[in-house]
């Protein structure tokens, strides 16, 4: 009797489990009967706008290719990296996925991604790419480092400054063009009694990137010496580090911002606590929806003391095919469809990013975007070198770098010691990487060109 009850419960569990799993396998069966191929596409930074866009694009694609069905999947950005890792390890990656360019140094050595080199080289729209995309995104950042192409960029993102136009007018300040003017403006806009601060400081969750953006403006965009030593050992880097962190230490940024990440710095700006925000183009949408139109604007990246602009820009995401996909041909077809000049322009406009193609006849992109493109085209603009491609980079960025800077901000450690700790970490990792990959060299400053 007892045995029967036990078996009964187990059997009903099996029944429920298989009933709950069937919807999934049914779809695949149907697909093979009609000789219809189903591919899955994972978006790693979903939002209602993006989902709407992709659903429309998928519908159009399926109409053009009746034998291919695309299934849109999404994973929240915070967990995207972990999920892809897990799917890679268990060989259940989707056919096509959004790839964050910085993830390549993990996923390519792990063998999760399919090289797209042959497809890309035979791609008819290749010639229409801006030289930034074909030279830097495709060649410098992929072919040179990994010997193959692994993603097709979806669009470009570039840093810029979001400013409170009304505050600047109130203080009778011109909009800043150089770093010096930014520091001065940050001080002048700060008024703790009104709960106003000049700069949207970011102390956590990759906050060091913001400091590095200023440091590289005094190191000529370089991040390493020829022998793989970090530029953070240079005296001018120390000076820049102290100057930038003074924004926090002198109270031109909210005291709370030592703990701020991406969300808080944007919220701090849109809620009217801070006056200047260093962010990428995609934030335009958030600013538009939560602030009055005439209260803010976007200004070009500031020039350094040498009169040059050292900017960070690159593909926001890319489309990749997983190595174990069974429908690689259909997957590429889908990527090629996403990357037609018309669809790419539609995408870039909807997401407030920079398209990957040369604009034909001008006026193709929305107003503020053109400003970013012009900045990238400016003869004085240079693309800063990155921090390298060694596997320890994740560890450096995820916890180490911000904790070290926070120690300095809290006066628990000197600036010298902080930069030495950061520099030691980077130097060790980079020199080890160069030893293992003798022809890799150090990351280089490049000249962007959009046309």
């Amino acid at each position, binding site marked *: 009797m007892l045995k029967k009850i036990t078996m009964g419960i187990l059997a009903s569990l099996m029944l429920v489990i298989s009933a709950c799993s069937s919807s999934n396998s049914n779809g695949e069966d149907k697909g093979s009967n009609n000789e219809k191929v189903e591919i899955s596409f994972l978006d790693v930074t979903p939002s209602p706008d993006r989902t709407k866009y992709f659903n429309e694009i998928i519908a159009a694609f399926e109409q053009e290719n009746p034998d291919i069905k695309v299934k849109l999947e999404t994973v929240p950005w915070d967990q995207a990296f972990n999920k892809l890792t897990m799917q890679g390890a268990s060989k259940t990656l989707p056919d096509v996925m959004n790839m964050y360019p910085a993830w390549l140094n993990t996923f390519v050595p792990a063998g999760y991604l399919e090289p797209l080199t042959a497809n890309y080289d035979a791609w008819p729209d290749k010639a229409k790419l801006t030289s930034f995309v074909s030279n830097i995104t495709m060649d410098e950042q992929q072919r040179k480092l990994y010997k193959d192409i692994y993603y097709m960029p979806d669009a470009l993102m570039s840093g810029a400054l979001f400013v409170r136009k009304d505050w600047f007018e109130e203080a009778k300040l011109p909009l800043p063009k150089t770093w010096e003017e930014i520091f001065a403006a940050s001080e002048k806009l700060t008024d703790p009694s009104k709960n106003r601060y000049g700069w949207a400081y970011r102390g956590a969750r990759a906050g060091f990137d913001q400091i590095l953006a200023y440091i590289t403006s005094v190191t000529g965009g370089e991040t390493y010496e020829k022998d793989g030593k970090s530029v953070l050992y240079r005296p001018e880097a120390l000076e820049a580090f102290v100057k930038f962190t003074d924004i926090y230490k002198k109270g031109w940024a909210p005291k709370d911002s030592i703990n701020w990440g991406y969300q808080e710095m944007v919220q701090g700006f849109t809620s009217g606590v801070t006056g200047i925000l260093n962010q990428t183009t995609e934030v335009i949408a958030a600013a538009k929806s939560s602030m009055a139109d005439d209260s803010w604007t976007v200004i070009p990246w500031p020039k350094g003391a040498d009169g040059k602009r050292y900017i960070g820009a690159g593909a926001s995401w890319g489309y990749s095919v997983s190595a174990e996909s069974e429908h690689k041909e259909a997957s590429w077809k889908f990527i090629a469809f996403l990357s037609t000049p018309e669809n790419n322009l539609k995408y870039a406009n909807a997401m407030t990013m920079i398209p990957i193609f040369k604009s034909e006849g001008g006026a193709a992109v929305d107003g503020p975007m053109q400003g970013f493109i012009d900045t990238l085209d400016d003869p004085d603009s240079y693309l800063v070198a990155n921090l390298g491609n060694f596997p320890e980079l994740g560890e450096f960025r995820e916890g180490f770098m911000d*904790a070290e800077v926070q120690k300095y901000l809290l006066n628990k450690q000197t600036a010298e010691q902080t930069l030495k700790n950061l520099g030691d970490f980077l130097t060790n990792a980079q020199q080890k990487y160069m030893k293992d990959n003798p022809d890799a060299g150090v990351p280089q400053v490049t000249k962007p060109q959009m046309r």
Partner: protein
Amino acid sequence: MKRIKSKEPYYMLAPSFLLLCIFLLYPLLSSFLYAFQSYKLTAPNAIGFNGINNFKAVFQDSNFGLILKNSFIWVVLTVGGQFILGFILALALRRPFPGRNFYQAIVFLPWAISSFVVGLTFRWLLNAEYGPVNDLLLRLGIIKDKIYFLSDPELALYTVIVTMTWYGIPFFAIMLLAAMQSIPEDLYEAADIDGAGIWSKFWHITFSYIKQTIILTLLLRTIWVFASADLIYIMTAGGPANSSSILSSYMFMKAYSSLDYGQASAIGLFFMALLILFCYLFMKATKFEKAGNF
């Protein structure tokens, strides 16, 4: 009633242990092996046994001491706070009062909400610049200067502890209340006839009757709280300057950001060893075994 040679208990336990063995023991054993290997996802061709190197790397971290201390504070204050406040709530709810059903449904609500919503909401509530808590306290004149709940290294850990306590009170309250409900009412009646006071009734009846549940929930909750890092990750990311990092949040963030599963597994095992030690001591101290539970 208690039979020694019967297969019945095995049949009764079989379904549970079958599931546990397939879906927990098997994965655990595989990660046990990883702990002694160089197992980096980024270097799939360099996987091989490397002895205790993974364990060495764990202990050589310079932040290790601070983080152990934080873990201790975190566990003791969180579990203690949840337990005491949960106990008081359960006591207050034991006897009926008008509207008790409705009241109960509301005070148990924190339990029914996802931890990431709790983390995000409290991070916003406690934000010093645009969060309502500071704004309210300032307006009511309770404080003169803003309190930097999440950015003051002296406060950050305790802020997360308060949040975690808030989140966990209903668990204790429900468990203890359910246990209190099964105390036979005639025990109290008998005590009343004997003229026992409130404290004596509390100690000799309520407390001693539900002691088993108390010990059990305390033990399990300690294990869970020790291992749970999501609120810390969401609210402070362990900062500022690791002042709110605990073992689980720090170590896993470190190992997983470099995709070094060998090291992550070594940490996991160290982690389990600590907990086993704790359970052993806890059981000794509470005489768990003597109480007839084993």
